[in-house]
């Protein structure tokens, strides 16, 4: 059976009208009263992120002037270098050697630097009482021996590679990290094509129009093909992690991802381009292991699941005859999609200053199939390599 009778149906129904429901106009008029505008979700989300960034900056600016009694390790730092104008020296871990009286970032110092360090003792136990350390500092402070040289001074005297620049101290006792990250999947796009035999009609935008509609209606009997790509266009996130040992930490946060799909349906000289954006919010759960640390650099291994749910979508459609744009529309259909992903990556971090570091993280993700019929980058590429970069604040 041909398609013809359904092709005729729209024209048969074209002039058909029904009586509007009783009281509709009154209801519409009542609804036309000025309404309080509700801020869109992205506006609210932007405000929340801005507020979070402001808090983070406030903490960073406030932290250096904080009381020395925050943690014992910090007390040690301040007792040893009480008037230092330069970067705060690091607090050694229990398993690191430490220079007597002057705290050097021994765990991060290169060999040349370590060679110049005159006296190295056994590791200092983290739980050193504050009072004891402070007393030690007071008794040792008058001593102007060769060891009582602050880090900048030491750097100035040193002709080795470390002489020109001192790595920023990292508050190693700090356990809380906040990170702002963005990323993209390395395999950016996946394409597909289909020819369903029942083509799209680019004249759809004016189908309900009058006889003088400028866009011609086309027959559905012409063959058509649909081609397209699925890709990820945006992924940003805000996360918090907590170190429960010097090497292990766990974290969570919030991510926002946009998946983009482009469809092009061609029928004769007409083309309909549809772009769909799927917006997801995600909650990652992540374990991180610090595998390697040297000077300003550290390498971590991250792994964990991410729970994501769709929060909205947008369909932009443009119809062309030849090169001429003939119709355009925008829709925001609601979507439901909940999914889990598993991911892992290697995180290379570069300490920019005491409380801030840049990081790059190549990794991969497995987007676990959830039975959804919604086609997207996640369904086309269940396995994908990704690349994340961002800024990490340490407190």
């Amino acid at each position, binding site marked *: 059976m041909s398609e013809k009778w359904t092709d005729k149906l729209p024209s048969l129904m074209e002039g058909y009208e*029904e009586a*509007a429901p009783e009281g509709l106009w009154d209801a519409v008029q009542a609804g036309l009263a000025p309404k309080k505008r509700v801020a869109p979700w992205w506006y609210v989300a932007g405000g929340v992120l801005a507020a979070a960034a402001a808090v983070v900056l406030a903490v960073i600016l406030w932290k250096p002037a904080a009381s020395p009694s925050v943690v014992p390790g910090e007390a040690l730092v301040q007792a040893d270098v009480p008037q230092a104008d330069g970067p705060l020296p690091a607090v050694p871990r229990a398993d690191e050697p430490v220079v007597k009286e002057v705290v050097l970032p021994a765990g991060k110092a290169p060999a040349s630097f370590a060679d110049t360090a005159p006296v190295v003792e056994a590791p200092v136990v983290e739980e050193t009482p504050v009072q004891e350390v402070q007393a030690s500092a007071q008794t040792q402070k008058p001593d102007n021996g060769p060891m009582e040289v602050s880090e900048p001074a030491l750097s100035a005297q040193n002709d080795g590679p470390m002489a020109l620049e001192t790595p920023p101290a990292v508050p190693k006792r700090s356990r809380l990290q906040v990170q702002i990250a963005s990323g993209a999947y390395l395999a950016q796009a996946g394409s597909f094509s289909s020819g369903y035999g029942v*083509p*799209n009609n680019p004249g759809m935008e004016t*189908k309900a129009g009058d006889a003088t509609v400028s866009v011609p209606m086309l027959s559905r009997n012409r063959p058509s093909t649909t081609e397209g790509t699925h890709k990820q266009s945006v992924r940003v996130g805000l996360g918090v992690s907590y170190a429960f040992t010097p090497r292990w930490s766990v974290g969570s946060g919030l991510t926002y991802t946009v998946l983009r799909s482009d469809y092009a349906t061609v029928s004769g000289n007409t083309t309909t381009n549809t772009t769909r954006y799927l917006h997801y919010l995600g909650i990652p759960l992540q374990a991180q292991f610090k595998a390697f640390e040297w000077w300003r650099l550290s390498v971590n291994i991250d792994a964990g699941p991410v729970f994501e749910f769709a929060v909205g979508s947008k369909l932009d459609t443009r119809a062309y005859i030849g090169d001429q744009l*003939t119709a355009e529309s925008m829709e925001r259909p609601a*979507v439901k999609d909940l999914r889990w992903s598993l991911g892992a990556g290697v995180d290379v971090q570069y300490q920019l200053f005491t409380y801030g570091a840049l990081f790059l993280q190549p990794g991969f993700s497995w987007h676990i199939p959830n039975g959804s*019929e919604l086609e997207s980058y996640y369904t086309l590429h269940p396995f994908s390599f990704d690349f994340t970069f961002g800024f990490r604040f340490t407190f």
Partner: protein
Amino acid sequence: MTERPPHNNTASKAVSEKELAERLRRRDSEAMRLFYERYAGFLTAVGSRYVPERDQLKDVLQDALLQIFNAADKFEYRGEGSLKAWACRITVNRALKFLRAQGRLRFVDELPDVPEEEMREMQQVPPAVLQDFIRELPDGYRTVFNLFVFEQKSHREIAALLGIREDSSASQYFRARAHLAKKINQYIKNHE
């Protein structure tokens, strides 16, 4: 069901669609009334193909008309008929949103698979009867059928719009079409 709308849209036809769109953009209340007089009957017919229940249809149309009036400044005039087509799309989107919120867009095979009959002279069937036949289809079938036939969406677009597979859309459409063909033929046979 088939009565004409109680509107006197003679006056509204004196205003071109372009002028009407421009006045709607300026939130001219008289233009809103003219728009209602001109298109309320058409939009009611469109909306009732998706939401047949009269009381629920009123809610859908109210939301659609409010959106039309509130978003008129975003409308871009592209020739005679474009305002009507734009209003139609908004009404359809509102209807889809309503059906989604009601959990009525279930795309299961409710209708038995029947062979499609050769269509007889469909011109004999009044539009109101055709409209009734369409409204009698289950929600999922009816939605896909309307989007495909009246909104001229491809199955891929319908799939993207409704969050279903392309072949699910095609399957729903073909079953709906077969059942409609059977009903229309039966009607023609009874009225010969």
